[in-house]
């Protein structure tokens, strides 16, 4: 049953994935100026440019070029990065865990902070926590993520000296743990390297916090709203009338139902997080795919940028799919209407 649902949803996501491929292709072909002349370099003769044009397949029709592009994609060929000299795909695969670890930790923080804030605010409407929630929801969306990151660096690294220098995933003396998941926090624990784990945790805290703060606001606002609606519903009154303790009513009954709208906003939250991730990675010199794309952009090295945009598009579509399935797991009523 569940498998059938997954297959159906996956099929529904296919046109979107196709759209991602088409957009990435169009972005490749819209390179500024003449790509052939660009790749040939400024000193190239006319014949050399023509030769490169044929080599790149730019003399063919757009349809043929698209077929060629699909063939390359099927082989996992995203082109070569001029800056690193490596295939873009292997660069991205090597750097993806760093970005994923950062984004997931930020999401975890944002979800914990946002949901508890939203619940507490809804329990006492117009109390001081509710007002705090309102202020955070208003100010949080105004914060440029890169600016929050810099402020945190100033306070916790320069003023207080609590955080390590914002330069990458580990301090200079630690070696990366043996590769299992690519997540340093998990790998170091698996290898039993306490020192490496502490270093990785110290390095990731500030960037994850700066990224997460950005997402606390929408989560807190939605949780508060849906929690308020649920708390005034009949089944909560019934649970209270049965003499259940306040804690049971709030956590086991109200929160479970109030989380449904929160799950649906996760898609939007991920769009924010994945975008802001690029900025945070630049601020903290985090060796993920965002900073990879930024470095390539500055060097006018376009293949990594396009590979990055496509990877992010794919990831985002799959994340939305996962959120959709999660929603079905939490709310079985969806099965009936689907």
């Amino acid at each position, binding site marked *: 049953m569940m498998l059938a649902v997954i297959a159906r949803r996956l099929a529904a996501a296919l046109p979107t994935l196709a759209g991602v491929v088409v957009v990435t292709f169009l972005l490749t072909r819209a390179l500024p*100026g003449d790509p052939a002349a660009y790749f040939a370099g400024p000193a190239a003769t006319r014949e050399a440019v023509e030769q490169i044009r044929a080599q790149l397949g730019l003399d063919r029709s757009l349809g043929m070029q698209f077929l060629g592009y699909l063939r390359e994609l099927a082989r996992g060929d995203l082109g070569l990065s001029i800056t690193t000299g490596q295939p873009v795909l292997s660069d991205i695969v090597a750097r993806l865990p760093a970005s994923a670890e950062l984004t997931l930790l930020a999401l975890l923080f944002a979800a914990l902070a946002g949901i508890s804030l939203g619940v507490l605010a809804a329990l006492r409407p117009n109390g001081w926590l509710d007002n705090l929630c309102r202020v955070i929801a208003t100010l949080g969306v105004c914060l440029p993520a890169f600016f929050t990151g810099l402020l945190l660096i100033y306070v916790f690294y320069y003023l207080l000296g609590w955080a390590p220098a914002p330069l990458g995933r580990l301090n200079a003396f630690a070696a990366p743990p043996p590769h299992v998941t690519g997540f340093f926090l998990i790998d170091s624990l698996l290898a039993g390297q306490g020192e490496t784990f502490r270093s990785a945790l110290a390095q990731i805290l500030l960037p994850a916090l700066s990224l997460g703060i950005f997402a606390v606001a929408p989560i807190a606002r939605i949780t508060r709203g849906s929690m308020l609606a649920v708390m005034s519903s009949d089944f909560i009154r019934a649970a209270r009338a049965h003499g259940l303790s306040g804690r049971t009513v709030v956590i086991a009954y109200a929160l479970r139902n109030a989380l449904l709208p929160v799950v649906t906003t996760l898609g939007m939250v991920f769009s924010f997080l994945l975008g802001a991730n690029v900025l945070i990675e630049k601020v903290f010199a985090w060796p993920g795919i965002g900073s990879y794309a930024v470095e390539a952009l500055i060097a006018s090295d376009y293949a990594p940028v396009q590979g990055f945009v496509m990877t992010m598009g794919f990831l985002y579509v799959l994340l939305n799919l996962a959120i959709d399935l999660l929603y079905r797991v939490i709310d079985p009523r969806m099965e009936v209407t689907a």
Partner: protein
Amino acid sequence: MSAASLAHARHVLSGNPVTALAFGLFALLVGTAILGPALVPFDPIAAAGPALQPPSARHPFGTDAIGRDVFSRVIAATRLDLGMAFAAVAIVFACGTLTGAAAGFFGGWTDRIIGRLADTIMAFPLFVLAMGIVAALGNTVTNIVIATAVVNFPLYVRIARTEASTRRGAGYVEAARLSGYGEAHILFREILPNLLPIMMVQVSLTLGYAILNCAGLSFIGLGVRPPAPEWGIMVAEGASAIISGEWWIALFPGLALMIAVFTFNLLGDGLRDIVDPRRRT
């Protein structure tokens, strides 16, 4: 706006000092954008004193790594930052509202094609797509504006589409149809004017996002070229100095950015209260 709706607006504003504050801040920002470059005490792109001076009476926001006055740069940057955001939002307002309204009004294939286009844009994290567009079209300010407009497109389409489709069978639309007016005439003369208030709220809300988007793009080194004063690039310039304790270079442009976004968000919420009292929070 009629006298009655003006009175209504005044009534809502008087009960909501926050919105009045937002209107005040908005006027201040626009005034700074227009007059700022003429009023600043120092040339924003030339050295005005010793480098890396902390804030003082002479340089209220200090000086940056090459001795330029940060205060003058923050003020002078207002025009470029607001200009980029206004331009982007103007483009997406015109294109997004029109296509969205057409999709909702005509339905059928028009609706399906426009919807698919919007979905495809939504398939990317928006900032990432904006990066890709700037990379593809070329690293200029114009392309930052275009990219910001494109990533906001689905939002406008979606709202305009919903609003237009609920008005498709409204009495005044039927009346216009019975009077013999063509579909295009009905779309432009009956549907679109009715969408304007709700779209204006969206304009204000997306202005804040557009400023963040443009500043984020220039923070990673796209579009705006140094030495032009712009908030995002100024924060980027201050990023290396903040590690050695010179906080003022990044702080003030960052604060300016926050205030601008804050103003537009407040303004959007306030406008929504005036236009659509049911959604008041």
